């Protein structure tokens, strides 16, 4: 299906976004001697092995003890270290929410919480591991910056950008091999939405893996004569309200797309902005108040209504409501 479409962005290679994190962390370590890494028995899964190898004195294996890891990281900032913690997204957030809340967010510590295997696309491990609430939990915390990049390149760039950013941050990425469709040399600006495709009829705000689905959806809509604007919201918080309002002022309606619960995620963030400023129709693509399950990433995105076809449907619905 993708092949026959006239896509505005294409790819020649697929890679997991977690590798973007691993490669970014290694580079970050070379650039800044204060960067330290911590991991809770998932070095391979988080792709932190290269950093560990090159900087054994700046890497800490904490074992299966995520709460301890967050506390350690918070402590290391006192003395100027920039800790990057690594574990699965579920154990990076839900497992340690109060540790993050008190020792990192409230105390305003420069900890970078790096979370892999987020969302449904983690696949066969199933619902216990497929966190779909992390963006909501993290964006609710005052002081917290929340970033959800879309491919290998953007994840690598985001990791590097976080070294220079001061303050608590949550970086969310995933497990599956995914198209690399953004340029490798694009600068990552925290808090600045990236308009990827210009359009007039409807705006698609997408984050994470679903940015790719949005790119596919744009081409599908174009075939039917609908002009969609695609905006990559890699930073959920702080949200680029200006870019959102500017786009919706032009298109008059919008769709949000995220690998997350409808409750509390990107869609809700955008709804807040729209309802206060320009209450235009907004349709949500996301998981509708349910847990995930085992399956392949493709099967799960389809079953839970998160793929390009669903974005197309949502866009048409939003258009009708204009």
């Amino acid at each position, binding site marked *: 299906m993708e092949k026959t479409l006239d896509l505005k962005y294409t790819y020649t290679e697929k890679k997991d976004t977690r590798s973007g994190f691993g490669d970014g962390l290694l580079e970050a370590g070379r650039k800044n001697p204060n960067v330290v890494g911590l991991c809770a*028995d998932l070095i391979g899964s988080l792709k932190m092995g290269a950093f560990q190898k090159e900087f054994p004195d700046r890497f800490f294996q904490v*074992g*299966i003890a995520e709460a301890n890891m967050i506390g350690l990281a918070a402590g290391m900032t006192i003395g100027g270290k920039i800790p990057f913690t690594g574990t699965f997204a579920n154990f990076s957030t839900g497992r340690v929410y109060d540790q993050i809340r008190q020792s990192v967010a409230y105390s305003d510590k420069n900890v970078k919480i790096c979370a892999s295997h987020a969302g449904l696309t983690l696949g066969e*491990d199933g619902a*216990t591991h497929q966190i779909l609430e992390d963006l909501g939990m993290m964006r609710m915390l005052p002081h917290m910056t929340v970033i959800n990049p879309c491919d290998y390149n953007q994840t690598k760039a985001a990791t590097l950008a976080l070294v220079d950013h001061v303050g608590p941050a949550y970086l969310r990425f995933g497990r599956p091999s995914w198209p690399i469709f953004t340029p490798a040399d694009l600068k990552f600006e925290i808090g600045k939405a990236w308009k990827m495709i210009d359009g007039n009829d409807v705006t698609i705000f997408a984050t994470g893996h679903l940015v790719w689905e949005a790119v596919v959806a744009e081409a599908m809509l174009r075939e039917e004569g609908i002009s969609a604007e695609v905006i990559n919201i890699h930073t959920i918080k702080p949200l680029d309200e200006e870019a959102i309002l500017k786009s919706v002022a032009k298109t008059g309606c919008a769709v949000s797309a995220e690998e997350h619960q409808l409750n509390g995620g990107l869609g809700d963030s955008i709804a807040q902005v729209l309802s206060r400023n320009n209450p235009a129709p907004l349709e949500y693509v996301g998981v509708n108040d349910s847990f995930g*399950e*085992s*399956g392949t990433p493709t099967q799960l995105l389809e079953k839970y209504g998160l793929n390009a076809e669903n974005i197309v449907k949502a866009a048409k619905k939003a258009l009708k409501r204009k």
Partner: protein
Amino acid sequence: MEKKSTDQLKQICSQVRRDCLRMVHAVQSGHPGAALGLCEYFVALYFNEMEHDSNFNFDGKDEDLFFLSNGHVSALWYSVLARSGYFSTDELATFRKINSRLQGHPATHEGLPGIRIASGSLGQGLSVAIGTAQAKKINGDNKTVYVMMGDGEQQEGQVWEAAMYAAHHKVDNLIAAIDYNGQQIDGPTVKVMDLKNLKAKWEAFGWEVLEIKKGNDMESVLAGLEEAGKLKGNGKPILILLYTEMGFGVDFMVGTHKWHGVAPSDAELENALGQLEETLGDY
């Protein structure tokens, strides 16, 4: 359920190992290492030790109950549940596939008989088992609650919160076990995060600790479980340190963390199955 002979139990183990490998292979995902290492213990529990009813009753009143805290060992549990009649062995073919009741990690959400709580996020099962054991006491139900944990899992703080609680509240109708295989994801436990003297730690927390040094030897497992059973009701919770070998039963999988969460290829599966007799018929 009538008790099986040791030989029969060993035969079941061989079949269960085949099931685990075939399940993980079919979906190219899952955790064969600890599953192979824990076969003897699970089979001994489900086919000899526990009084349980495969016509699954969620509250399990007047039954011995089992909880799996290290939920990634799901393939083994599903095979043992199916082989002891909780559901059809055919269903093992759906493991980790979409729309299956056999989720990647154990879940109640899809209603699979035999499972009473979700697990997968480590460190939580002991607390749950203690709670259920206390509910049994309140109900005047004198059956036993069993719970399995991993050794890497001991690094989670919640395990020790639970350990302290159970001793304080004299939860002596509980037999916990640690799969002491010395391995976790990133390598041997001693290298990742040394557990040091686990026996002394649990004893210091006020538990009755006994060791099954040969956790892959059916006679030893049966003897250990019998001994543990005798310690019940003495005011202390009971812990079994179960020494196993990860990947036991397949020569190229044994004793390494490499097979913690990796599926065998076609050729590897064939090689492995060649080492395990098909005793009860593959699903």
